[in-house]
C-alpha cells in the first residue's frame, strides 16, 4: 500500500510531518492540477526523495539528469567531467564530485538550496495530488549528499507562505486552545512569534485570546499554532468550559445517562465490578 491523497484532503504540510515523524524513506510524486480559471496553468509532476524522514533530493523529471543539468548550466563542470569523475555508483553525485575536487561545499549548498526552493514553491499550489512510494531506489544521480529534515522544509515553506487557502481546514480553530505535548522540546529553531505562541500552550486560552494578548492578527496565530502542531510540540484542544445543565436531553441519552444533567463535571463513570468484567471477557471470548 502507498500513501496517496489530494492536497485538499491531506495537505503537503501534514504529509511532510508524517514522513518526518515516521522517518520514512521513498519517493513522493506530486502532480499539480491546472487551475480552472487560468489558461496558463498546467499539470506538472515533481519528485521528492526522502531518506529516514529527511529530504535528500527533488526534481521535476525522472531522467536522472536534473542535477547534472543544474551543474552544467552554472558552468561548474561539463557533462564529460561529471561522467568521468562520478565513479562511485552508490554515492550521491554531488558528494562524489566534491571528493574529486570538481565541486566545492558552497556549490553543493547552492545546488541543494535550489532543490529545497523547488519544494517550497509546491506549498503555494492549491490543487494537486500526491503518492508516496517507499519501494523506490535511492536516486544517487540527483543527490547532492546534503539533506534536511522534512519538518524543517515545512517550517521554511510555511513561514513565507502567501496563500493559505488550501490549508484553511487544517488550521486550528480560533475558539480552540493549544496544549503542549509533555516532554516535547523544539528540535528546530522557532521564530519569536512561535515561541510566544508556545508559551500559551497550556490549554486554557483560545487562539483568539492569544491573538488579543499578543496583539497579532488571529490568522498569524492560527498559522503559528499549526506549525507548532506539525513540529509535534502542541496539540489543538477544545477549551474546557462548563457545559450547560441538561435537564431533558434527547430521549435516548436520558435512557443512557439518566442522571446526566445532575452530574458534576469530571465525575468519573461508575466502575463496574470485577466479576462483571470477568463475565464480559468470557462472553466476548465465546463469540470470537
Amino acid at each position, binding site marked *: *500500500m502507498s*500513501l*496517496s*491523497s489530494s492536497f*485538499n*484532503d*491531506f495537505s503537503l504540510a*501534514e504529509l511532510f*510531518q*508524517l514522513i518526518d*515523524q*515516521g522517518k520514512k524513506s521513498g519517493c513522493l510524486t506530486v502532480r499539480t492540477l491546472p487551475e480552472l480559471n487560468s489558461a496558463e496553468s498546467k499539470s506538472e509532476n515533481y519528485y521528492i526523495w526522502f531518506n529516514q524522514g529527511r529530504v535528500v533530493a527533488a526534481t521535476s523529471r525522472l531522467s536522472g539528469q536534473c542535477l547534472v543539468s543544474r551543474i552544467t548550466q552554472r558552468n561548474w563542470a561539463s557533462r564529460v567531467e561529471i561522467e568521468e569523475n562520478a565513479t562511485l555508483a552508490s554515492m550521491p553525485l554531488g558528494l562524489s564530485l566534491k571528493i574529486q575536487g570538481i565541486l566545492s561545499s558552497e556549490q553543493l549548498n547552492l545546488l541543494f538550496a535550489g532543490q529545497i526552493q523547488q519544494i517550497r514553491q509546491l506549498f503555494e499550489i492549491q490543487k494537486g495530488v500526491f503518492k508516496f512510494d517507499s519501494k523506490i531506489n535511492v536516486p544517487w544521480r540527483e543527490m547532492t549528499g546534503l539533506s534536511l529534515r522534512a519538518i524543517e522544509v515545512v517550517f521554511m515553506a510555511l513561514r513565507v507562505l502567501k496563500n493559505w487557502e488550501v490549508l484553511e*481546514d*487544517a488550521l486550528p480553530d480560533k475558539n480552540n486552545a493549544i*496544549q503542549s505535548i509533555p516532554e516535547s522540546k523544539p528540535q528546530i529553531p522557532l521564530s519569536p512569534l512561535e515561541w510566544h505562541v508556545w508559551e500559551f500552550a497550556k*490549554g486554557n486560552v483560545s487562539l483568539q485570546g492569544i491573538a488579543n494578548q499578543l496583539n497579532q492578527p488571529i490568522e498569524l496565530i492560527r498559522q503559528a499554532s499549526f506549525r507548532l502542531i506539525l513540529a*509535534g510540540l502542541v*496539540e*489543538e*484542544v*477544545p477549551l*474546557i468550559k462548563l*457545559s450547560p445543565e*441538561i435537564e431533558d*436531553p*434527547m430521549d*435516548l*441519552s436520558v*435512557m*443512557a*445517562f439518566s442522571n*446526566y444533567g445532575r*452530574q458534576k463535571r469530571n*465525575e468519573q*463513570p*461508575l*466502575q*463496574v*465490578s*470485577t466479576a*462483571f*468484567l*470477568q*463475565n*464480559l*471477557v468470557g*462472553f*466476548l*471470548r465465546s*463469540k*470470537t
Partner: protein
Amino acid sequence: MEILRVVITGAVGSGKTTFIRNISEIDVVDTDKRATDETSEIKLRTTVALDFGRLTIAPNQSLHLYGTPGQERFEFMWEILIKKANAYILLVDAHRPESLRYSRRILNFMKRQTQIPMLIGVTHTDCEEAWEINDIALALGVVKEDTTIMKVNANDKNSVFIMLLKLVEKLAESYQYS
C-alpha cells in the same frame, strides 16, 4: 443492574453504526436521517444524535454501546456521551485520508475530557488506496506505544467482538492499577 457503557466515535462513514448494529441484540435505536449536505457524497444516511445497542451478559449485567454522530455540527453530543462512558473506541476510515484531521480532533477532544481506556479501530483496510495503520497512527498524532490501534471490520461480527474483548481487557487492566 450493572451496565458497562462503551462509546463508539469517529468521523462520518467510519463504520460506527455498522459496528453497533452488527452485534446488538436489540434493533439498534438509531437516529439516522437522510444526509442532505456534503455527507451525502459519502453515505446516504447519517446519524444525527446517537446509535444505541445492547448486549445482555447476565440477568443483571449488560453492555451498552453508544455511537456518536459523525458530523462536526453535532460535536456537542460527544461531551454528553463520553461523560458517563467506561471506555471508548475511535473508528478511523483507512481509505479516506480527508477524515484524518477530524478524527484527530475527536481524539484530542476525548483525551481532554477523559482518561478512560480507549482503542483506535481502523476500518476499510481492505479498500483500494487504504493507508497503512502505522501511517494512520502518525496522522492522528499517536506516537506513544500506550495507544492501541488495530484493524477492525465493522461488517464482521467476529472482528467487532475481538475489538470489544481487547477493550474490556484493557479496562480490566486499568482497574488493577487504579
